[in-house]
């Protein structure tokens, strides 16, 4: 038991009393008192809302056949409006969602338990309250769907369309501050036995999504998170517990986490072996690809926007890599003939979105804007032609196949027309 715990509780209580005091003072309706006047706070004051002038919303579909509105098109995800993003944090309310067709379960945190078992000396059953008593960490990490920015398969049409927005092409990545307990701490408590090499992480959703993750990663930087951006993880993001597996394909970040089984081989769960392997034209599938490669995209100006007049604009965008920190971002305004180093905005954090910018004077002529990033290992974001070469196939394959292109991190060009319109120019 942490001896500081009661002190912290007392502090929180005092903080609440102080907050009540401040509201009372501002209202000026009664003398200052140590009693919180909670009954006098209206709903808007209790939990703030953004201005009704702000229209930025997720787009796409929750992809749940029962919840879909009549005539609502099926999409693979609800995507983050990256064109409106600033800084590196995604509001939890705008975090992308891939639901695999299911509703978020309605979980009572008092009933929820995390079971750690299998090849351990001391199996553990933990409540949310137990986890909140343990030493916590808060870390910024992006989570990205492996199918983000695909050129083919379900959701791929946007990346081929000249009219696509950056939300449609790249909106399946989001970045949050995650707070929770390092999984390594829990595994050490349970005592991992010799011979255990994998964990199976399982959620409490309707299809009990499960995922095999190598033990090395679980002990390295995986996090059992109960908070996101300073509030409890939202139901659609895994309330009350989400496993955060930094830098790895989104599918590993198991929501509604209820069980971790220590085993000695991957367990070939449905998602990881039926939909997520990368099937290449030779008929062979690359399975258990985990780490998302270095990727960047200009979010402003981006597809669907319009530059009203020639003149000054700050080019701004996001870069990230599953391998670590972003070391450099370069921007070209002439279709890749020349490149300039963009400014990286602090903080630059490993496995988190990094904001970059470059001042630019648009002369009113046609321009082709693109960014490419380099991560801390010196790995450079490739062009689509380079990806094709790396895969041993042709660029045509990327628009002709019926499969989602997994882990596609090709450079994204945006074309600025003379009338100021911005178009997707990947193909």
């Amino acid at each position: 038991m942490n001896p500081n715990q009661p002190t912290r509780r007392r502090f929180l209580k005092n903080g609440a009393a102080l907050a009540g005091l401040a509201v009372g003072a501002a209202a000026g309706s009664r003398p200052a008192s140590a009693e919180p006047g909670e009954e006098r706070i209206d709903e808007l004051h209790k939990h703030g809302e953004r201005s009704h002038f702000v229209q930025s919303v997720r787009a796409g579909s929750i992809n749940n056949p029962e919840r879909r509105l009549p005539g609502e098109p099926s999409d693979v995800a609800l995507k983050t409006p990256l064109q409106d993003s600033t800084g590196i944090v995604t509001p939890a309310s705008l975090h992308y969602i891939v639901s695999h067709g299911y509703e978020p379960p309605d979980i009572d945190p008092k009933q929820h338990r995390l079971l750690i078992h299998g090849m351990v000396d001391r199996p553990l059953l933990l409540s949310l309250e137990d986890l909140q008593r343990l030493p916590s960490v808060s870390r910024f990490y992006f989570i990205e769907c492996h199918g983000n920015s695909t050129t083919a398969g379900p959701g791929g049409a946007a990346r081929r369309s000249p009219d696509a927005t950056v939300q449609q092409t790249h909106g399946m990545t989001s970045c949050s501050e995650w707070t929770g307990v390092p999984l390594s701490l829990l595994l050490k408590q349970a005592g991992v036995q010799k011979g255990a090499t994998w964990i199976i992480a399982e959620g409490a959703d309707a299809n009990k999504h499960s995922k095999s993750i190598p033990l090395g990663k679980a002990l390295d930087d995986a996090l059992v998170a109960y908070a996101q951006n300073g509030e409890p993880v939202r139901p659609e993001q895994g309330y009350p517990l989400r496993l955060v597996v930094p830098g790895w394909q989104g599918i590993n970040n198991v929501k509604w986490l209820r069980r971790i089984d220590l085993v000695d081989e991957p367990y070939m769960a449905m998602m990881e072996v039926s939909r997520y392997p990368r099937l290449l034209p030779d008929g062979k599938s690359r399975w258990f690809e985990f780490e998302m490669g270095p990727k960047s995209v200009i979010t402003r100006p981006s597809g669907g926007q319009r530059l009203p007049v020639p003149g000054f604009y700050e080019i701004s965008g996001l870069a990230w890599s599953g391998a670590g920190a972003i070391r450099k971002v370069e921007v070209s305004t002439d279709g890749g003939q020349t490149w300039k180093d963009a400014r990286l905005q602090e903080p630059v954090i490993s496995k988190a979105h990094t904001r970059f910018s470059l001042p630019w004077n648009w002369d009113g002529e046609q321009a082709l804007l693109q960014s490419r990033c380099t991560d801390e290992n010196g790995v450079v974001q490739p062009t689509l032609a380079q990806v094709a070469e790396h895969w041993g196939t042709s660029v045509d394959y990327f628009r002709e196949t019926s499969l989602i292109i997994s882990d596609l991190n090709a450079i994204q060009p945006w074309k600025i027309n003379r009338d100021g319109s911005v178009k997707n120019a990947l193909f």
Partner: protein
Amino acid sequence: MRFSKLLAATAVLAASAAAQAQMPSYKNVGRTPTKQQIQAWDISIGPDGKGLPAGSGTAAQGAPIYAAKCAVCHGADAQGGKIGPELAADKAAFKTLTTLKPVRVVSTYWPYATMVWDYINRAMPRNQGGTLTANQVYALTAFILYKGSIIRESDVMDARALPKVQMPNRNGFVPARFSDIPDEHKRGCRQGICP
């Protein structure tokens, strides 16, 4: 090489020593689950069949269960419907995996028959996962494998037989050895893509 191994070993020793030293400070956090609790929650089935329970079923036994519980989403013939994907295709469809429109369904793509049992048991029918008996799950697994021309209608599927079923795409995955999977960098993966 040997030096780095030694370093790693030292790091492991140090880490476990640190864990030992830390442990008393986390006293009374969490409970020890009972054996029954673990058994009730542990639904994972290994590719080798580890965890498969007693029970059995055939495709013939599975047909009426499928018609009653599965056909509404997956189609009368496992051909797929508005809600559920296609489950079984003609054996010739396996050859489409090298084309631009691969038929990637249970019978043509999944490498292990045990996965079929695991997923039906945990997740099916939709929003009613865990309601089928072990016998029903064996029978439904057999039905899908039969529809994919992988086993015969009368073949009995149980904890011994199911792991031995040869799925057509069993050798379609790289790397082939499980022990080669965890270290992506050793595998030569670059930019998130593995060769």
